C-alpha cells in the first residue's frame, strides 16, 4: 500500500546473484570487468534447496513500520515485516535475505526471479492475484484520514468533496479517492512528503493505510487522525504462481505463528494489534505486551537534536552514502568505458563501413538517442527475461547506461573524426598505409584529443544519469540518499550531502580529462610554454 519503501540501502547492493556481485565489486580494469560481466550472462545455477536462502523483496524507502533503516544504526533494517519473515525463516529452517526493490516494481521483480517472496505491505487485490499467488493475510488494516489538528471540517470521505487530498501512488486509497471524482487527488511517491504537505497547507487531508498514519501523524506537529476506519485491506505474502510448494510452507508457517501467538506478539511490539486484527485472527483485542519497537521508534523520531547531534548523525550517514557512491562510481566507470570503446567503433562504422553496416549503425544510434534511458533500462532488466536473457542488476545497469551513452559518444567521435583534414588521410594512404592503419595511427589519435572535452562532459552526465538505475533495484548514491532521507525526515541536509558526493566524484575526472588533453596534444603544451604558434597548413 505504501509506495516507496526501500531496503537496507547499500548493504545488499542489488542483492541478487551474490556470486556475480563479488566479481564485479573491485574491477582490476574496466575492460576486464566488462569481460567478466559478459561471462556472467549465464543464468545463476541453482543451490541445493536446504542451503538456498529465502530471498524476500521489499522497498525499504516507505519507512516505518514495514521495513526501514534503524535510525540508531542505519546499516540495519528493522520493521514488523522483517520480524515476520525472520520468524517464518526460523520455522522453515531456512536463512532469509532481504532484496531491495522499488515498490511498484515488486511484482515484476518476483516474476523475474529476483527474489522468492514479496513481503512489503502488498495488499491482496484481484488484479495482483491473477499474476501471483498470495499467502493467507498476515495483517489486516483499513484506510485512515488525517487532517491538520485545527481543522474540524473533515471527518469522512464525503467531507473531502472539493478539497485537496493526498495519498500514495498506486495504492488502494488512491483508487478509492479517484472513484469518487469529486475532490482533487494528489498522489505521492513517499508517504512523508504527503504528510508534510498536509502540515504546510498544500493539502487539506491525507488518506493512507492506518498503520502509515499511526507512524506519521504523531511525530509531525499539528496533525491528527480524523473520522472512522474506512474499508478493509489485507496484506499477503506474494509468491510466484508456480511455487505452489513454497506457498504451502509459508501458509502453514503463518498458521503456526497465529496459533502460537507469535504473530500477535510481533504486531503488539509495533503497536499494530487493533480490534480489527483481533477479530480477523480470532484472538482477543486486549493488548497484552508492550509496544517497545513503536516506543523506541517514536523516541528516535521525536529527538530534536542539537547542532552537534545533527553533525554526529550526518557522520553516521557517511558510510552508507559512501557505499552508494562507490556503486555509482563503479557503475559509471565501467559503463563509460563500454560507451567509449563501443562508441568509437560505431563512429568508425558510421563513417567508413560498407553501406549496409553504415545504415545499420545510423539506425542504432538514432533509435538509442531517440528513446528514454529509463525505458531502455526497463526493457533490458524486465523485458529481456521474457526471451530468456536474465541479467544481474549491475550488468543490466552497465549495459543500459553503456549502450545509451555509446550512441552519444559515437556522435562525439564522428564530429572529431570529421574535423581532421582529409589531407591527413591522403598523406597516410600515400605512405602506403591501409585505410585501417591510417585510421588507427593517424586519424583516431588526432580526433581523440578533440573529443576529450565533450566526452568528459558526457561522463559527468552519465554519473548523474546513473541515479536512474535505482529503478532496476540498484542501490547507488541517489537510492541511498532517498532511503536515508525517508527514515530521518531530512531531505535538505542529507540531500546536500549526497549532492556534494556527486560533485566530489566528478571532480577528479575533470582534472583527469585536462591531463588527457595534454597527453594527446603534447605539441600544444610545448607551444603554450614556448609562447609561439605556427600553423601546419
Amino acid at each position: 500500500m505504501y509506495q516507496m519503501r526501500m531496503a537496507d540501502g547499500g548493504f545488499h547492493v542489488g542483492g541478487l546473484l551474490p556470486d556475480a556481485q563479488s566479481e564485479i565489486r573491485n574491477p582490476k580494469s574496466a575492460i576486464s570487468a566488462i569481460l567478466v560481466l559478459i561471462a556472467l550472462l549465464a543464468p545463476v545455477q541453482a543451490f541445493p534447496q536446504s542451503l538456498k536462502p529465502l530471498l524476500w523483496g521489499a522497498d525499504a524507502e516507505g519507512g516505518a513500520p514495514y521495513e526501514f533503516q534503524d535510525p540508531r544504526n542505519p546499516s540495519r533494517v528493522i520493521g514488523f515485516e522483517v520480524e515476520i519473515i525472520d520468524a517464518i525463516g526460523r520455522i522453515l529452517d531456512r536463512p532469509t535475505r532481504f532484496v531491495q526493490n522499488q515498490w511498484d516494481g515488486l511484482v515484476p521483480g518476483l516474476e523475474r526471479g529476483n527474489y522468492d517472496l514479496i513481503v512489503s505491505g502488498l495488499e491482496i487485490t484481484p488484479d495482483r492475484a491473477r499474476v501471483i499467488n498470495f499467502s493467507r493475510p498476515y495483517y489486516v488494516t483499513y484506510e485512515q484520514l488525517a487532517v491538520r489538528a485545527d481543522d474540524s471540517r473533515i471527518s469522512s470521505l464525503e467531507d473531502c468533496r472539493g478539497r485537496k487530498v493526498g495519498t500514495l501512488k498506486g495504492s488502494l486509497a488512491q483508487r478509492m479517492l479517484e472513484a469518487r471524482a469529486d475532490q482533487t487527488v494528489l498522489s505521492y511517491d513517499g508517504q512523508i512528503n504527503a504528510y508534510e504537505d498536509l502540515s504546510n497547507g498544500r493539502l487539506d487531508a491525507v488518506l493512507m493505510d492506518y498503520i502509515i498514519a499511526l507512524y506519521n501523524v504523531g511525530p509531525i506537529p499539528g496533525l491528527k487522525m480524523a473520522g472512522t476506519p474506512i474499508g478493509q485491506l489485507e496484506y499477503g505474502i506474494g509468491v510466484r504462481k508456480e511455487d505452489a510448494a513454497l506457498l504451502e510452507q509459508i501458509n502453514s508457517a503463518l498458521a503456526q505463528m497465529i496459533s502460537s501467538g507469535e504473530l500477535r506478539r510481533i504486531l503488539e511490539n509495533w503497536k499494530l494489534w487493533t480490534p480489527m486484527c483481533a477479530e480477523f485472527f480470532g484472538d482477543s483485542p486486549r493488548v497484552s505486551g508492550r509496544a517497545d519497537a513503536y516506543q523506541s521508534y517514536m523516541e528516535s523520531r521525536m529527538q530534536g537534536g542539537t547542532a552537534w547531534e545533527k553533525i554526529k548523525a550526518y557522520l553516521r550517514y557517511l558510510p552508507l552514502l559512501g557505499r552508494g557512491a562507490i556503486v555509482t562510481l563503479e557503475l559509471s566507470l565501467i559503463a563509460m568505458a563500454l560507451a567509449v570503446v563501443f562508441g568509437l567503433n560505431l563512429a568508425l562504422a558510421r563513417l567508413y563501413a560498407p553501406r549496409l553496416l553504415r545504415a545499420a549503425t545510423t539506425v542504432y544510434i538514432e533509435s538509442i538517442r531517440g528513446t528514454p534511458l529509463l525505458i531502455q533500462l526497463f526493457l533490458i532488466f524486465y523485458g529481456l527475461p521474457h526471451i530468456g536473457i536474465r541479467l544481474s542488476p549491475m550488468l543490466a545497469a552497465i549495459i543500459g547506461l553503456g549502450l545509451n551513452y555509446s550512441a552519444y559518444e559515437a556522435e562525439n567521435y564522428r564530429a572529431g573524426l570529421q574535423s581532421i583534414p582529409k589531407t591527413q588521410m591522403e598523406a597516410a594512404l600515400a605512405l602506403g598505409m591501409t585505410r585501417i592503419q591510417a585510421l588507427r595511427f593517424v586519424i583516431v589519435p588526432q580526433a581523440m584529443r578533440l573529443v576529450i572535452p565533450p566526452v568528459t562532459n558526457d561522463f559527468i552526465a552519465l554519473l548523474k544519469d546513473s541515479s536512474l538505475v535505482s529503478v532496476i533495484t540498484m542501490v547507488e548514491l541517489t537510492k541511498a540518499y532517498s532511503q536515508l532521507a525517508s527514515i530521518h525526515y531530512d531531505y535538505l541536509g542529507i540531500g546536500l550531502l549526497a549532492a556534494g558526493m556527486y560533485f566530489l566524484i566528478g571532480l577528479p575526472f575533470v582534472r583527469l580529462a585536462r591531463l588527457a588533453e595534454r597527453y594527446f596534444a603534447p605539441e600544444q603544451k610545448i607551444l603554450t610554454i614556448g609562447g609561439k604558434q605556427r600553423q601546419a597548413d
Partner: protein
Amino acid sequence: MAEHIIEIQDLRKAFQGNPILKGINLNVDASQLTVLIGPSGCGKSTLLRCLNGLEIFDEGRISVNGLTVLRDPGHSQLEAEFQRITHQLRAMVGMVFQSFNLFPHMTTLENVSRPPTIVQGISPREARVNAHRLLEKVGLKDKAGLYPAQLSGGQQQRAAIARALAMKPRVLLYDEPTSALDPALVDEVLEVMKELDAEGVTQVVVTHEMRFARDVAEKVVFLSDGCVVEEGEPKKIFTDPDDTRTRQFLKRFL
C-alpha cells in the same frame, strides 16, 4: 636513352562529367628530375595524384617500375584487384604535398620513423636510426624532437620529404612543394630536391618555380587543357618552344 620507370598511356579522368585529363601520354626516365608545368587547372596535380592512386582515373594505363594499373571500359581490372595494385603502387611511389600534411600528433622524428614500422614492419630501432639519417640529410638533425607546429614551413616540407624517402620509394612525386612557402623559405626545399637529383633519385615535380625547372630539371613537360602540349629538355622548352601556348605561358614567368 634511359629506361622508362613510369609509362603513362592515354590517361583519361573526368570530374562529374568534366574532363580534366584528356588522354595523357608520358614517359618518365629513371634517375631524372622531371618537371610538370602549365596553367592552373591544366590537370598537372590530377595527373600526379593518379600516379599514386589518390585519384582513380577513368581510362588508360599507368605502369610504374613494371607494375601496371589498367582501366579500360572493355576489360578493366576488377575493383578489388585495382585496389590491391594501387596499394602496391604506393609502396613504390612517394608523395610530397603542397601543404606538407605532416602528422601533427607525432614529433618530426616519429613522422619519419613510424610509417615504415607501420607499413613495412621495420623494427622501431632500425626505423629511428634510418629517420635520424634522413633528417640529417634534409638538414633537420636538431629538430627531431620537435612537433610539426614548432617548425617553419620550409622545415616542415623538408621533414615531409624525409618522411617520403623513409619508405624507400622508386619515384618521388611533388605536388607544388613550395607554393605554400614564404619566398624566403623556398630555396632550402629546392636545395634538398637538387641534392636528391644529384644522388640519382627519380623525381616528378609539379611546380611554378621556373628557374628551378630551367636549372635543375632534366626534362620539362608542359601541360595545357588536359593534354601534354610539349616536352623536352629545359633549354629547348624555355628558349625555343615549338608551341605558341608554351611560349604564351612562359612569357608570364621569365
